[in-house]
């Protein structure tokens, strides 16, 4: 949001775009407005249509129906090479017959940039991805992560006003990824470039993006800032996809101001009315759940009892999976400082009704979430 004043980034407008492969709909009525200079991340399960969306924007894929404009103008019929869009492909697409240096110089050569200037910019881009020493190698002589970095350098080197990146850091280790995240942020800030970014790393999405669009089965489920998606998921799918979550299912009863759910005999309540959903579920974030030994002093208005099913050491804390009475699993995160529990320990979970989100149960619509 908040397009920067010095903005040179391009706005994108996808209007009910669909793309079918035979009977299969890879995109199914996707509408998405991206402001100039915005950093938009596409998030979603594997095969949900993220790459297809990028391809549509870049002009590599014909749409079956719908409209698309970039920079305020319809780009139907504008060939890909005139769109001036930098793309980092999920599969890199490095030219096997060119060295790393020539790969990165390629877009500059096309733009008739003089040798000196070109050399300088190639060197700068390669240095940025820490591949300065590899200019004379061929792509087949690089490791996976090195290839990915070259692809990144190639997309960035010509300062396009719009950058599409399909998991550009997926093959990189954490340190390098963080460094490149900073660089990408810098480019975003300094040049006002519009970014459309695909990543599977939610932390990365939160760190980088202005807004995030959550894809599911060729549709967009929700668009919003990271906090919005985490705190106010519009659908159960989004709630479960973003961050860890505990989903409570049970018999629901709704009175004037609140809804009560009976889970394996224990009843929990949330201060919101049912909106007519036949089977509402209650979604809870791990940090909203307090974990303690049974009988210990309680926090929150609701409690549920369960058993530790899995305890995972995470370096900076622990994550517990707690088996509840109805067999479902609750996920709780506790800081290192807190009490620690062992497998099989009986525990009690407490939470505030206000922290629970009531959502319609759409879990049958998606098979990729467990």
């Amino acid at each position: 949001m908040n397009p920067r004043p010095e903005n040179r980034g391009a706005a994108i407008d996808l209007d009910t775009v669909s793309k079918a492969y035979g009977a299969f709909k890879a995109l199914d009525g996707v509408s998405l407005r991206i402001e100039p200079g915005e950093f938009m991340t596409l998030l979603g399960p594997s095969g949900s249509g993220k790459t297809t969306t990028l391809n549509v924007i870049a002009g590599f894929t014909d749409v079956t129906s719908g409209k698309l404009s970039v920079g305020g103008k319809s780009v139907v019929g504008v060939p890909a090479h005139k769109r001036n869009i930098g793309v980092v492909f999920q599969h890199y697409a490095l030219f096997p017959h060119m060295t790393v240096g020539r790969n990165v110089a390629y877009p500059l050569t096309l733009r008739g940039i003089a040798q000196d200037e070109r050399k300088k910019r190639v060197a700068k881009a390669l240095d940025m991805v820490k591949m300065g020493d590899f200019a004379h190698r061929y792509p087949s002589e690089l490791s996976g992560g090195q290839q990915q970095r070259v692809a990144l350098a190639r997309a960035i080197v010509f300062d396009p006003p719009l950058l599409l990146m399909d998991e550009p850091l997926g093959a990189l280790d954490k340190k390098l990824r963080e460094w490149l995240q900073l660089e990408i942020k810098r480019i975003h800030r300094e040049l006002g470039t519009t970014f459309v970014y695909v990543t599977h790393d939610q932390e990365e999405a939160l760190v980088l993006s202005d807004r995030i669009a959550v894809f599911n089965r060729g549709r967009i489920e929700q668009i919003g800032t990271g906090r919005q998606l985490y705190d106010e998921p519009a659908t159960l799918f989004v709630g479960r996809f973003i961050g860890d979550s505990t989903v409570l299912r049970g018999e629901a009863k709704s009175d004037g101001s609140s809804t009560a759910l009976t889970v394996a005999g224990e009843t929990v309540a949330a201060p919101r009315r049912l909106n007519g959903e036949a089977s509402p579920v209650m979604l809870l974030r791990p940090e909203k759940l307090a974990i303690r030994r049974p009988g210990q002093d309680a926090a929150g208005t609701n409690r549920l009892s369960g058993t530790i099913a899995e305890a995972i050491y995470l370096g900076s804390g622990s994550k517990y999976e707690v088996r509840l009475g109805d067999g479902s699993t609750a996920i709780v995160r506790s800081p290192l400082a807190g009490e620690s529990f062992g497998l099989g320990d009986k525990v009690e979970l407490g939470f505030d009704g206000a922290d629970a989100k009531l959502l319609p149960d759409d879990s049958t619509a998606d098979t990729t979430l467990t």
Partner: protein
Amino acid sequence: MSALEPTTPSAPQRAGWAWRPFALTLPALVLLAAVIGYPLITIVLRSLSEPQWGLQNYTWFFGAPVNLTVLQRTFSISAWVTVVCVLCAYPYAYLMTAVGPRVRLALILCVLIPFWVSGVVRTLSWVILLQDSGVINSLLRSAGFDGVRLIRTQTGVVIGMAQVLLPFMILPLYSVMKGIDLRLVQAARSLGARPSRAFFTVYLPLSLPGVYAGAIIVFILALGFYITPALLGGPRSTMLSTLVQTQVLSLLQWGRGGAMGVVLLVATFVLLSLAAPVMRSRHREAGRR
């Protein structure tokens, strides 16, 4: 900098190639129509109209046993030549991809050299090599194999034709093999494939476009061969082109010659279209829109 050029909304949206594919084939098609379309139509018409209108030339063709024998022989010799070419070209082309630049240069030279010496002359050379008193038979005799008849047999014809056509098999094959991702073979090996198994299940299928390309060229060229089977073969290896030649050049029997040509053309196309689905595999289709 403006992000985009002004647009023409009506033009179809297309990746990379903004031109309609058909336009690309147009120059070739125009030339084709101009230089052989007209003659070809005349030929078909003449086959139906000489000496009078009707199918007499076709009934004649299918009525004379000799024509059918020769037609069948033409296809079977061509098939043999194709098989021999595939079998010899495959390891050869593969070796070309596997050796160092020096050996590769030598191998390429061996393929290209025959190209440059006139086909007629080369066939005469084959006569010299294959004849009963020729070099190969002398070698065979000194090795104890006496009286091996090579010239004027179909074997001789196939040997000679295959040699002439081998480069047409090797080059397309080599150019495709060069592009095969050998990591896929590694993957097969890791999954438990013996080298031979990995070869047959992965490398071979991936090299098939080259095999098909070469095989089509070789087979079709073989169908039209005239000089080589005539010189290396005897009466029992006459091919259809010779009959056409006689009908047209000696007898001025245009109708009959034309009918033979049309039969050959149709038979070939039928064969090709039977082969077409095999040649265009779906995994490539997927990449296209």
